[in-house]
């Protein structure tokens, strides 16, 4: 177990390095000259040149990468081109919001989709099943930010039940935070819930048809026990894997939903940075999110290993 985690982490580190180098290299082929962009239209060539020197942009690529890497090992992600703010600080500011959104969405997705999917898989076929199929198909086709807008329309504007857009950060008031978070969380998780439901249902239906389920039945087990022990443990393996992938997707989707609600999570920070071509921030966000996704995948693999230890992967 530990060796597996160790091995996966060891593979992840060079991957992250590759990611960082790739994105770093991309920033240098960008058509925007950061110095010119920062100084504005009327900048003189000399001042541009000076700023470039100050930002270290006249050094060769590898050298710049090396010094950036050095900074990284000392805990710094560089400084933004606009405002000269440490990237790490900006990311740290936005992290709580995004974390709250994504983790809540992930939990909601898992808690709703997995049990429903398992139950539906055991009882595949029938009219209810087909109705659910249609509904989930419909929800999968909806863009999350559109759902977010519609939810704001209904719950904030028309029904006046929940606060609308404009929430900015996580406070210590849990109740108020929950009210602000619930709609964006639902918007983010809705399509993922449907995808996870379908996956779990398919897996459960396959497992329910296996011989060992019949063996278990022959020992007198109740249908409920059968579902929540034998079927669940086997069917959840692909679902947990999918959930790990969905974490990654949700981080990206959260970026869009954050914009709908004016929330300052790392997603919307990245968007702002992209709009103003502030590449160091974008680079920082990419690295941090990639690291999170890799960690999530390792966690998912560990969970799968506990669920169904098999000598060979199916």
């Amino acid at each position: 177990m530990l060796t597996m985690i160790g091995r996966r982490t060891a593979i992840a580190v060079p991957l992250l390095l590759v990611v960082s180098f790739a994105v770093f290299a991309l920033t240098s082929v960008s058509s925007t000259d950061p110095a010119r962009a920062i100084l504005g239209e009327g900048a003189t060539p000399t001042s541009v040149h000076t700023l470039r020197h100050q930002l270290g942009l006249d050094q060769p690529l590898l050298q710049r990468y090396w010094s950036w890497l050095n900074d990284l090992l000392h805990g710094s992600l560089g400084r933004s081109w606009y405002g000269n703010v440490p990237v790490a600080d900006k990311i740290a500011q936005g992290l709580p919001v995004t974390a709250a959104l994504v983790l809540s969405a992930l939990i909601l997705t898992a808690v709703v989709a997995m049990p429903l999917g398992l139950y539906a898989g055991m009882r595949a076929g029938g009219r209810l099943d087909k109705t659910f199929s249609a509904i989930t198909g419909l929800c999968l086709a909806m863009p999350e930010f559109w759902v977010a807008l519609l939810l704001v329309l209904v719950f904030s504007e028309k029904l006046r039940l929940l606060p609308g857009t404009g929430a900015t950060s996580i406070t210590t008031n849990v109740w108020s935070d929950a009210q602000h978070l619930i709609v964006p969380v639902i918007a983010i998780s809705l399509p993922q819930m449907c995808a996870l439901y379908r996956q779990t249902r398919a897996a459960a239906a396959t497992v329910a048809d296996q011989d060992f389920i019949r063996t278990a039945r022959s020992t007198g087990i109740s249908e409920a026990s059968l579902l929540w022990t034998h079927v669940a443990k086997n069917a959840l393996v692909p679902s947990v894997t999918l959930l790990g992938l969905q974490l990654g997707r949700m981080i990206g989707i959260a970026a869009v939903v954050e914009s709908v609600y004016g929330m300052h999570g790392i997603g919307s920070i990245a968007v702002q940075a992209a709009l103003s071509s502030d590449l160091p921030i974008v680079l920082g966000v990419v690295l941090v999110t990639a690291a999170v996704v890799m960690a999530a995948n390792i966690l998912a693999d560990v969970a799968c290993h506990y669920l169904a230890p098999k000598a060979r992967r199916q």
Partner: protein
Amino acid sequence: MRLRTRAEYVPATRDTALALSISGLEIGIVDKVAGRVVPVVTGVDLALAEREVLGLVGESGSGKSLTSLAITRLLDPKSVRVQSGSIRLFGRELRTLSEASMRAVRGKDIGMIFQDPMTSLDPAFTVGHQLNSVLRRHTALRDRAIRERALELLALVGLGDPRRRIAQYPHQLSGGARQRVMIAMAVACQPRVLIADEPTTALDVTTQAQILELLKNLADTLKMSTLIATHDLGVVADVCDRVAVMYAGQIVEQASAEQLFYHPKHPYTERLLLSLPRVGVRQDLQGIPGQPPRAGNFPPGCRFAPRCGYIDAPRCVVTAPQLRQLGDAHSARCVRVDDLRLSGVGA
């Protein structure tokens, strides 16, 4: 072919209790496209006496597996339905039991073993866990007592080093070992009846022999009544006291093993025995030409008539023959049973 008569076997008399008594069993397959149920097992009467080992012989598609699964109501109602008939366990009607009562019967009064040990154990749980769950459900044993009992069971079924096995996962065990685990699960609560559906088909020859030996010993030690469904006459010869032969959804002959092998009364049985390869005799393998009739396409008369070498139209083709008692607990479903002199093994 050597028949091994069990020392413990006492042929049943009229007073012997019937562990299982099946009468008039009709099973059909749901044909969703046509919206009807196609009969596949018709009018089956089977009696398993106490402490007896009964073999249910038939080729695949004959309905023997469906029959054995029907006893414990393990058939999936969405695809297979038991239309009518009575199934009694020591006089207790099983078909009308509530599902909860049936669950109390499964695993406790009736144990089952299935064909493919490689897929019949849950890969996600250890051997110990799967044994525990049976014991927990039907006994009051807990904690240390359950663990002791589980270890006992593993030793009983001949698994070496039970302490190591109990913590292992199925994929760490060989096919034979897995089959033993399944047997352990089936006999864990000392059921009065054991039903084995093709218990050795998926095993290699040496393991087959071992498992059959185990089943015989268990039947004696635990005083169980055993029903073995198989297509392998070798299995029957090795283990069974009595045999029922199934063809195209019907019982066509029932007799003691000895009677069946040496004095068969049904042409199908004769052909089955003929098709057994004989040691020391060089000859071509004798198959039976033709195919059994498919469900829904049963001929009106005798179902074996199209392939029978002794066919005597119109007697055989027009009316469906009944299962006739021939004395000495031997019955056969053939109108020509009185005039035919069929040959058994060793003839």
